[in-house]
């Protein structure tokens, strides 16, 4: 090496001319290691809080108790017992709520994004509705639709539909003037411009709306169950909390979050499949399966 350098000539030439960028050690740790470390740290703090009784053990269970209960609930789910039934009820609410939110949100989004009537006359009302605390409508939905799953589906859809409208409408405005002009020169009519240009270009916006909706729809279903009873997972949580069975509450919440994650993943998967041309930001990509 030194010889190779000396052929270059000048004595003042530094020995080491190849340099590498400094990467901090914390950025070089493999992902799974850093994730597990964070989890372990979190559990350790939790255990510590439990040991020194910073919070009464009646309110906060130990991590060990919670994990133990995770297995109890898991066994119940796997053997197809009442918890599986409750999970299925909530899943139905989430799926139906999501489908309704997407259908309604898409239709209104097209109305708002494509027509000036929608943009100028309909949108202000939608914004007004969105600013309402939608959870407050839960009792109304219960009295309209009863204690069955219909009232929960309605609340879930109601809470989740607005981001779909915003995503759809924003997507319809995403086509740049060049692309619109090109479609004009090709003699495209309004329908062709909508279907062949505006909708596909707006897909990334539409899907970010869907992702928001996928999270909100679970919130809506569970809140609906809290306030309107029924046979879902939310009801199990409510009962466990009333009995001060906090490990059970924690483990149920963890299983419920898996349901939310699953809906989010389905949407993220669909986005990758159908909007294959659009590279997402790094943060969103790492969250996707």
């Amino acid at each position, binding site marked *: 090496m030194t010889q190779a350098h000396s052929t270059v000539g000048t004595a003042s030439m530094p020995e080491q001319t190849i340099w590498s960028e400094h990467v901090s050690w914390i950025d070089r740790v493999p992902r799974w290691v850093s994730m597990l470390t964070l989890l372990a740290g979190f559990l350790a703090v939790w255990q510590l809080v439990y040991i020194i009784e910073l919070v009464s053990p009646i309110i906060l269970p130990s991590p060990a108790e919670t994990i133990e209960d995770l297995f109890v609930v898991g066994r119940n789910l796997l053997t197809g017992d009442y918890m599986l039934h409750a999970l299925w009820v909530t899943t139905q609410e989430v799926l139906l709520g999501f489908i309704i939110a997407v259908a309604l949100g898409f239709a209104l989004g097209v109305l708002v994004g494509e027509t000036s009537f929608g943009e100028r006359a309909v949108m202000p009302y939608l914004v007004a509705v969105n600013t309402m605390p939608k959870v407050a409508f839960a009792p109304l939905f219960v009295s309209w639709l009863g204690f069955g799953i219909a009232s929960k589906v309605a609340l879930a859809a109601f809470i989740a539909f607005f981001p779909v409208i915003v995503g759809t409408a924003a997507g319809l405005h995403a086509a*740049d003037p*060049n*692309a619109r*002009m*090109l*479609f*004009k*020169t*090709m*003699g*495209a009519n309004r329908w*062709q411009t909508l279907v*062949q*240009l505006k909708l*596909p*270009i707006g897909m990334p916006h539409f899907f970010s709306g869907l992702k928001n909706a996928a999270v909100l729809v679970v919130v809506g279903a569970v809140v609906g169950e809290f306030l309107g009873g029924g046979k879902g997972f939310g009801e199990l949580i409510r009962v466990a909390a009333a009995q001060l069975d906090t490990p059970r509450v924690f483990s149920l919440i963890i299983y419920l979050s898996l349901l939310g994650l699953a809906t989010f993943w389905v949407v993220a998967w669909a986005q990758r499949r159908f909007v*294959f*041309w*659009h590279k997402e930001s790094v943060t969103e990509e790492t969250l996707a399966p």
Partner: protein
Amino acid sequence: MAVLSMPGDADSSVGLTGRPVYELRGVSKTFAKRNVQALDKVDLTLREGTFSAIIGPSGCGKSTLLKIMAGLQPPSSGSVILQGRPVLGPRRDIGMMFQQATLFPWRTTIENIVLPIEIRDGKAAARAKYDQARQLIDLVGLKGFETVYPGELSGGMAQRAAICRMLITEPAVLLLDEPFSALDELSRDFMNMELQRICLERSATSFLVTHSIPEAVILSDIVYVMSPRPGRFVEAITVDIPWPRTLDMMTDPRFGALVHRIRGHLDKGAFQ
């Protein structure tokens, strides 16, 4: 200022005798809302197989003129006649190309190219044009990229695909709106030579809007110099440099003289 009034005498003086393809007579455009006169009695004849360029400072009404010629905007007065029929809207015998290639990322190169056919005649007609599209891809030197998505094409390659998309409807006139100005200078020179080759090969009737004097001169039979507010033609300059042109010709004294003459007009306009 030497204002040569356009049509007949200017055209005959340049000795072009091809069939007139596109004729504009007394085309004016006033934007009533802002009370701005963008174009003032513009006369223009594009003859078959010729390449014309229009050059002028920003805001001289070039884009307005091009939009009128593309059927995207109506003129306030005057007649706009392509192939003997007045232009009343976008037409399939008008090919157009913009500064941005504007390929759609969910369509492969060849699907992008047949898009004008798909919009006008439907999917089946578009599929029937695949052979022709492949020939065009060959012509512009994009062979092997037919089924590639535009995300994988460079800027220059994307513009080649845009050329194919413009040509697929076999237009009578090509309207080129600064087609390569978003490319770097080297690619731009190269693409201009490619454009010349393609236009010569198909004996296309072309009309180029540009900000670059050398580009206008090297590509054109006639360069129209435009003055702003209201936009009108100041002079039509015939470029008597033989075809095919090469980039070396930019050092030709005749080339220099033409550039100088056009620059003179534009500088005068700037200080009016």
